[in-house]
């Protein structure tokens, strides 16, 4: 199994000490190495205008093929339904490993993403393939459970073999200004992850403004997130280009200020190949091409994969086929 590169010393340095000030409504996070983090304000109009420019980049022919391959290799192929069964997960895993059996040259996706109960099935069908198993945990998608329950949820998923954990922050605490609570909960869940990678979902659709998203991004990174992630896919507003840009800029600032590298996962509502490469362009022009790797960029999606496969078929044959020419999962 391919292991993701890990920031040196991160786990050893986990402190139990609270580094945010006692007055928790004051937002003044510090990184683990003690760097006081600066958070710049965000101008909504300018941010959205910049985000639009990425969507006007034109990607054709050879660039398009490379972008599609990259997008496939960055997918967290996801099923998060109450009706999920081991059978459904088996099919998903098969698709994740070999997206198109007729085209063995295509890369596998980065991971399958499932509920904790489905982790054993996912592990069974991906062991030895290099495809990671990501589990949402910690009372996903609301996060509205006690810390003990959330930590137990994560520990169980990790024990069952998940090597990536997607959690969601307590938006209620964040919006009420209790940043210390949010910091502590992320830190505790990071400890519960042990060797597994932690992706922290900000649920940006519930944070109310880009300023808040930027703040939450910094807080999550300071508290130990390996990835910050936009959305659960379970609320009305999912990932969008401005939201992703806002978070990517926070990641860049965090790297500039602390030297620590954090990844970005966008999720929810990303269904077309075109949307996927808009995000790739955003990452390339904001964070640089060194972020264009599944180790640092992920797209949480389900139907996106098939659209990418259809685009590949179009490049190969010159003709558009239809949904009947790719497997449902």
């Amino acid at each position: 199994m391919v292991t993701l590169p890990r920031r040196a010393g991160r786990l050893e340095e986990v402190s139990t000490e609270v580094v945010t000030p006692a007055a928790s409504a004051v937002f003044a996070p510090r990184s683990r190495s003690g760097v006081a983090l600066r958070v710049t304000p965000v101008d909504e109009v300018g941010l959205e205008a910049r985000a639009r420019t990425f969507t006007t980049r034109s990607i054709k022919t050879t660039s398009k093929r490379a972008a599609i391959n990259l997008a496939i290799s960055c997918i967290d192929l996801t099923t998060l339904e109450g009706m999920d069964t081991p059978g459904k997960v088996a099919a998903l895993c098969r698709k994740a490993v070999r997206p198109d059996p007729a085209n063995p040259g295509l890369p596998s996706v980065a991971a399958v993403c499932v509920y904790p109960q489905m982790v054993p099935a996912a592990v069974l069908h991906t062991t030895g393939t290099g495809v990671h198993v990501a589990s949402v945990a910690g009372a996903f998608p609301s996060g509205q459970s006690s810390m003990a329950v959330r930590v137990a949820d994560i520990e169980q998923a990790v024990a069952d073999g998940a090597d990536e954990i997607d959690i969601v922050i307590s938006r209620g605490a964040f919006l009420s200004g209790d940043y210390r609570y949010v910091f502590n909960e992320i830190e505790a869940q990071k400890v519960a992850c042990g060797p597994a990678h932690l992706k922290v979902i900000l649920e940006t659709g519930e944070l109310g403004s880009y300023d808040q998203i930027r703040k939450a991004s910094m807080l999550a990174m300071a508290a130990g997130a390996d990835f910050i992630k936009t959305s659960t896919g379970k609320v009305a507003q999912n990932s969008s280009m401005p939201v992703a840009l806002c978070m990517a800029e926070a990641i860049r600032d965090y790297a500039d200020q602390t030297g620590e590298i954090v990844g970005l996962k966008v999720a929810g509502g990303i269904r077309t190949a075109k949307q996927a490469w808009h995000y790739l362009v955003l990452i390339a022009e904001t964070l640089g091409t060194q972020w264009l790797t599944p180790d640092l960029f992920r797209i949480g999606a389900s139907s996106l994969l098939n659209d990418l496969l259809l685009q590949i078929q179009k490049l190969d044959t010159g003709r558009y086929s239809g949904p009947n020419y790719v497997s449902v999962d």
Partner: protein
Amino acid sequence: MADEIEPANLSLTNVTFDLEYAPALESKSIVSIDKEYGLFIGGKFVEPKDGKKFVTVSPSTEEKLSQISSASAADVDRAVKAARKAHTEIWGRMSGRDRAKYLFRIARQLQERAREFAVLESIDGGKPIRESRDVDVPLAAAHFFYHAGWADKLEYAFPDRRIAPKGVVGQIIPWNFPLLMLAWKIAPALATGNTVVLKPAETTPLTALLFAQLLQDVDLPPGVVNIVTGAGATGSALVEHKDVDKLAFTGSTSVGKQIQRSAAARGLPLTLELGGKAAHIVFEDAALDQAVEGVINGIYFNQGHVCCAGSRLLVQESIADSFIDRLKNRMSTLRVGDPLDKNTDVGAINSSEQLGRITALVEAGVAEGAEIYQPSCALPAKGYWFRPTIFTNVQQSHRIAREEIFGPVLSVLTFRTPEEAVAKANDTQYGLSAGIWTEKGSKILWMADQLDAGVIWANTFNQFDPASPFGGYKESGFGREGGLQGLSAYVSLSSPRGAS
């Protein structure tokens, strides 16, 4: 079960990927450029009396595009006579409602043929297709729509006044926004009942000539708009002509001064939109990433060939280093090259003369001790190109902080207090535009009050709208274009009959 599964294909997954944009060229096939063009006088293309022609070239390829007629004083006289006749017989007497119909028709045609105009603008002028497609052409159409709306409502624009057109107006436009400046000039003139003789810049005549063909298509009465191509001599023939009732000029300050001298001697109404050296002021409490975008857009938009370009960055000293790092970072993503490539951000310099001017001033900047930075982007072998450039360590007394470069060159200065920012921003002969970046509203209002600039943008830059008046102070000119203020330059107002 797991061992039945083939191992995943990992050959691509662990390699850092360099996202390259393949060439994405906008097709030229939509445009047909004639071998040569006549002058557009009295609704027809006519040969110049002395048969003189000059060549217009594409600045991105140095390819000769077409032979353009050079209008002599005699040709200008023909054009003014045609305009006078059209004004007396048709346009000056036409109802506002009917004039509006023509303006709406022009606006709609511009939209319908938007791609054609955008491609031609990029070929002839060197600007990226992204800008001609998304800014120049849509805004030009918007100006005609806006002024079409005023044509039958002038009594509401100027209540309790008798409103009369000036008559025949002479208009001279620059090469940086050829079609857009044409729209800024022609739309208000026609809406208010004037007829026009317009001279486009000699390096970028093609969209004006295509516009002339569009006017034939929409059946605009002959002589209402006349387009005379040529260089400085054609322009001065128009300025000196005895039967012109108003002049409007957009271009360099030195030519503007000559025109003002000539117009002043005859008491001729005049509006001038001239050079600029705008200060772009960034405070430490600004939304820094968006400020970076604003600064980049402010100076590299249209290769910096923008009179209101934010060519002086004044950044608060406390954030100067990190802000400059952010700027350099962003500059490395700018793509310089073929204007017709949809991924191009910075196109070709408009002419070899302009390239020479930019190069000379940049050399002066280096000689005076400012620190130069340019990203290492490849430039095409043919054509006129200049890398996006920033100068740091610039002093207020350096030439690059005082003279208009009109190219992709940013001079960075620092300040400590808002008062110092104002003092430095206003320390220039120009006064066209300024930009303020801070999240503090009260500071924006205070700064806007102190700055000597006709246009002030707060937390944005280079935003244009036909309803918003545009123009300068000091050596940036006088008069406004756009909005009610722009309209008023094209009408004579007097007290209504019977009023005391």
